[in-house]
């Protein structure tokens, strides 16, 4: 075995592991890669783990998904069931459904893997929503991370369809009802709807094609795209280095935390096993999607409580609360009752995707940001985020209106009306309430900086006056409460320039200035204490 190296002064590799590393380095430049990454710093905060929940549940989905493909038959050929599940013996069903029953009742551990797969999917998307909200409310999407925001958003959007196609594969009565809905939604598309539907289903609904077609989309196309996006997302996280909350020693130019090797590797690696372990425990004790109780899909059968998985719930809500508008003219029908919600659904998603670009347009902010915002310091953004969540959850209520009606003894019609009105009213109310709360918190921060922390200790002064003792903040707290920048709104400039010629501002510039005023004007921020104010108060001019 030769261990010749190019440089005679180079210390020969001794450990076998080192020799493998040398070999790889000579071919892939491993050491140059490791130089900047092996001791990469990751700040520690619980909310920075949310993305990991998603990454690991995605990994679990791939692992369990590969296992399921070994047993699942993506075929709609009709078979008669003769397996061990008594209530379906002798029933006609598709091969897809029969093989799912086979996985559940005849493959040892098959049911467990199926349940882990499905629970992971629900947690994957729930994790993405919460992760996205963390990034949103702390302003983690700002330059240089806008593209990563879009990558993450795309993962959420594609993840929903990945989930939907997977939910449809067993061809049970519940998922078939979901597919039927999809067909109806596609049919509502003006002009090309029927063509799209016939091309998707290979003819009339349900046909014999959608399971194999959804299968290739579910196991190949979408996961392939998602794996690429996940890789890009992670590469960018490494490249940009993680954001951090304001704190002692933390600045826009540094990153403070523990190194990848060994601490973060142990924590992140351990967390993968924890996520997998928790989901396994859930799959052991709680049933998910018991397709055997639902029976095979037949387009003339249905069950009440027909719902999609939770992540499609908001689109289900849109569909349920929309009034049944239809326009018929010149021998054609425009199915607004279905088409309008079908169009609002991507708009709800796009609103949150576009937000970073709108915000930077309104600030003219070209700087890089690595210190996260405290949500209270950006009242308009926080208000917008809460309004978005309000729309989202109001629609979720709409999507589950039948289950809510039976379990809270309410009228389904009343809930529908509540959602119809709430869709417009609640986000506005939530926006204003959130903004007020943020401003209140800003005022409290200001008071704390200027007057110190209320200790709750009441002291009686010699002349009889009672005062509450205020404790000055530590330097670190003072810094954290004042570290944020307060941008000034964009101004249009004087209407008349220095030569006395009237300047004309474009309507876009006017809108921009108006919105910028709304974001950063006086009504949207409490000015943070200045050094002068602080000096004046702390240099002994009275206590309060």
């Amino acid at each position: 075995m030769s261990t010749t190296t190019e440089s005679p002064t180079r210390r020969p590799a001794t450990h076998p592991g080192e020799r493998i590393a040398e070999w790889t380095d000579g071919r892939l430049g491993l050491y140059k890669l490791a130089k900047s990454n092996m001791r990469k710093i990751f700040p520690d905060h619980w909310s920075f783990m949310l993305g990991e929940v998603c990454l690991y549940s995605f990994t679990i989905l791939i692992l369990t998904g590969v296992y399921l493909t070994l047993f699942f038959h993506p075929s709609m050929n009709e078979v008669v069931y003769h397996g061990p599940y008594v209530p379906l013996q002798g029933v006609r069903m598709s091969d897809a459904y029969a093989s799912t029953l086979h996985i559940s009742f005849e493959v040892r551990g098959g049911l467990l893997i199926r349940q882990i797969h499905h629970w992971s999917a629900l947690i994957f998307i729930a994790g993405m929503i919460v992760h996205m909200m963390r990034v949103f409310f702390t302003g983690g999407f700002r330059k240089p991370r806008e593209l990563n925001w879009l990558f993450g958003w795309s993962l959420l959007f594609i993840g929903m369809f990945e989930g939907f196609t997977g939910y449809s594969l067993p061809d049970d009565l519940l998922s078939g009802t979901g597919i039927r809905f999809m067909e109806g939604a596609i049919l509502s598309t003006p002009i090309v709807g029927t063509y799209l539907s016939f091309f998707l289903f290979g003819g009339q609904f349900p046909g014999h094609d959608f399971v194999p077609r959804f299968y290739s989309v579910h196991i190949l196309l979408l996961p392939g795209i998602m794996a690429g996006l996940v890789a890009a997302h992670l590469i960018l996280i490494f490249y940009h280095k993680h954001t951090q909350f304001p704190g002692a020693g933390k600045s826009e130019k540094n990153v403070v935390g523990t190194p990848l090797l060994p601490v973060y590797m142990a924590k992140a690696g351990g967390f993968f096993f924890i996520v997998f372990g928790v989901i396994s425990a859930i799959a052991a004790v709680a049933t998910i999607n018991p397709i055997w109780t639902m029976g095979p899909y037949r387009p003339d059968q249905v069950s009440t409580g027909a719902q999609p998985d939770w992540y499609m719930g908001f689109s289900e809500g849109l569909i349920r609360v929309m009034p049944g508008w239809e326009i018929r003219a010149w021998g054609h029908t425009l199915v607004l009752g279905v088409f309008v919600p079908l169009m609002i659904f991507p708009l709800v998603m796009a609103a949150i995707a576009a937000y970073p670009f709108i915000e930077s347009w309104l600030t003219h902010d070209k700087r890089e940001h690595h210190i996260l915002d405290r949500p209270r310091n950006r009242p308009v953004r926080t208000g917008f985020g809460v309004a978005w969540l309000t729309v989202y959850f109001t629609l979720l209520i709409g999507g589950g209106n039948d289950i809510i009606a039976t379990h809270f003894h309410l009228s389904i019609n009343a809930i529908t009306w509540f959602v119809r009105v709430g869709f417009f009213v609640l986000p506005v109310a939530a926006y204003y309430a959130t903004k007020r709360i943020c401003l209140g918190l800003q005022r409290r921060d200001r008071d704390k900086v200027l007057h110190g922390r209320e200790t709750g200790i009441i002291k009686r002064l010699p002349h009889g006056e009672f005062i509450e003792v205020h404790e000055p903040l530590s330097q670190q707290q003072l810094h954290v409460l004042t570290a944020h920048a307060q941008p000034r709104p964009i101004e249009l400039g004087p209407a008349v320039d220095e030569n006395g010629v009237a300047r004309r501002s474009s309507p876009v510039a006017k809108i921009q200035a108006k919105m910028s005023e709304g974001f950063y004007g006086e009504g949207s921020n409490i000015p943070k204490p200045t050094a002068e104010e602080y000096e004046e108060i702390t240099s002994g001019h009275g206590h309060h």
Partner: protein
Amino acid sequence: MKKLSARRRHPLAALVVLLFALAATGGLYAALAPAPKAQADDSAQSLAIDEGKRLYSVGCATCHGMNGQGSSDGPSLVGVGSAAVDFQVGTGRMPAQQPGAQIPKKKNIYSQGEIDQIAAYIASLGPGPSIPTKEEYSPAGADIAKGGELFRTNCSQCHNFVGKGGALTDGKFAPSLKGVDPKHIYEAMQTGPQNMPSFPDTTMPQDTKADIIAYLREVDSSSSKNPGGFTLGTLGPVPEGLFAWVFGLGTLLGIAVWMAARTTKAKKS
């Protein structure tokens, strides 16, 4: 009072107030909710129809009329048959506590003997479906899989895949079928109580009804198998999503907080 006011800013104060408010609301509701009707008297048996008529005039005639002809408060009972009486009174739905969109089931206050007497009286008013015999509704020997198919065609649209019930319009609902006596399920299919349509023997023969009952007993009784574990009510994706958020993501977030929390530092000495 001073003590109370001093503690109002305690971190647990909000919780205490909340519990207090909940207890007060619950107590008020319990106090104001209408109490069950008084017990029917438990007299000895005589001729079934006469005795049934007597029971009828006490418990039912107010709404259904002295001779079962019906009134603005209750439908005519001529021709509903003894099966309808056995179902309505046997499940406690009748006599109704109060009129409403739907009369819910409650504790039955009549003995089976009394129910049979009222049923005999009602049956004497006009021909209608009679109380089924045990052989008719017994699930023994019935075809469970056929029952499942029939259930999904005829019943699950309101009662859910495995009979957990579901919502109807304006606050009405299809009740859960768990624990319901097979006889009552049979009678409900036969007579169509309240807003439930009937499935008479002419369109759904007796043996197919038994198949449905057998299916329900297989999938929705306390001895039913839940291979995957806790069923979350078998209500579909809504409770599943809730469970994933609360127990799945909730647990993981709790663990994340533990992972990121600083390890206890050594005390400075």
